[in-house]
């Protein structure tokens, strides 16, 4: 067993520098690496490019980095929940690349699986296709999209073991698996870290080979963005 554990979030974030590109898992506030985001805020890391489906809300998730103007560029599919984001984007303080959600996921998946580029019909004939190579397959037009390049992938899983194997829960899985192994270094934070041998290998979602560092997060707020319930 190759042990991937690090003691805490500080050790897990060793080597991060201003100007780097980070991938961050999560959909809305669901399945985001909360402890790592807090550490990025604490270290006041500057001019970073963040690849993340969303940008958090004003006072949680990536919104915390936005508020401190740490983000130079965001690459996302949907940013509607964050007023500060919209302000920084429209004023030109922050650069934004909007990417169709499936293309975003596939550009991560391509990066981690060694595929430099791929063709997708998503965005053909729209401004997303501007400047991109197009090609017809089976009578349908496609655009070429490239794999992302990132320095770090920051992901969050439900359970993990010392070997870096990961299991996700519910829809908190989302972008996390596709980002594992997509950045040069993948750091996973988990709610529960167990010794090797305790996870059933049949149930592992992401094998430890895609993960370089793993730690158990100190605490999880797991904020709900839109609480919708029905009466009993």
């Amino acid at each position, binding site marked *: 067993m190759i042990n991937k554990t690090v003691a805490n979030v500080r050790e897990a974030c060793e080597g991060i520098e201003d100007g780097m590109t980070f991938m961050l898992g999560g959909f*809305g506030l669901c399945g985001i690496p909360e402890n790592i985001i807090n550490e990025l805020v604490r270290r006041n890391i500057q001019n970073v490019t963040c690849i993340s489906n969303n940008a958090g809300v004003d006072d949680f998730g990536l919104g915390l980095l936005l508020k401190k103007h740490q983000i130079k560029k965001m690459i996302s*599919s949907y*940013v509607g929940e964050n007023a500060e984001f919209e302000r920084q984007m429209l004023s030109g303080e922050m650069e934004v690349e909007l990417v169709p959600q*499936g293309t975003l996921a596939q550009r991560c998946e391509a990066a981690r699986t060694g595929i430099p580029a791929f063709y997708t019909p998503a965005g053909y*004939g729209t401004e997303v296709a501007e400047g991109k190579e197009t090609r017809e397959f089976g009578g349908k037009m496609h655009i070429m999209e490239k794999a992302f390049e990132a320095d770090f992938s920051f992901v969050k899983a439900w359970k993990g073991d010392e070997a870096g194997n990961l299991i996700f829960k519910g829809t908190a*899985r989302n972008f*996390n698996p596709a980002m594992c192994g997509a950045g040069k270094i993948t750091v996973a934070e988990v709610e529960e870290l167990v010794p090797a041998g305790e996870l059933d290998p049949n149930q592992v979602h992401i094998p430890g080979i895609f993960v370089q560092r793993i730690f158990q997060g100190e605490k999880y707020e797991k904020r*709900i963005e839109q609480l919708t319930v*029905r009466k009993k």
Partner: protein
Amino acid sequence: MALSKEQIAQRIAKEVKDGYYVNLGIGIPTLVANFVRDDIDVEFQSENGILGMGPFPFEGEEDPDLINAGKQTITALPGASFFDSAMSFGMIRGQHVDLTILGAMEVSQNGDIANWKIPGKMVKGMGGAMDLVASAENIIVAMMHTNRAGESKLLKQCSLPLTGVACVKKIVSNLAVIEIRDGKFHLLERAPGVSVEEIQKATEGEMVVDGEIPEMKF
């Protein structure tokens, strides 16, 4: 009478057939789930990673790790499955989802759709809409026929940045059910009490009216 949003959803629910996997967009499309007949088997897909999405949880039973694409707390029905975003859009691009229902700000008579951006005003992003419209074979758009100023949203050509080209096949609006074929709108059904003339007036694009147009049934 023009339809309410609930009635639009109710009419669209009739298009949902036994054995369908269905992706519902945010807004009116979400309401469709409430009107699907309970004697047929349908599974709802939410692109953030669930098939077999159920209703909202009971108070106190919400799980922050279980949400839909609108970030609302949901439940998982028996037979549900979870998966990651790359697989989710693999399902969509691979045309395994039978029906996609989404909203629109504008639709053109050749089936172009715009629903993600108003330049300089609203830039929230396309989310999964571009992937959905580019790959789905069977797309129904739920929309209001006109904007608040009374201007048509069913146009010769979209004025807003496009989400996808020549992809919409059917529209259910507050006034009508319309099919898009051969680069034209074709009027299929009228909302109860709404005349063909009223629909014609609210439609900027070219619309074919062939014979007697029946009223919608729910």
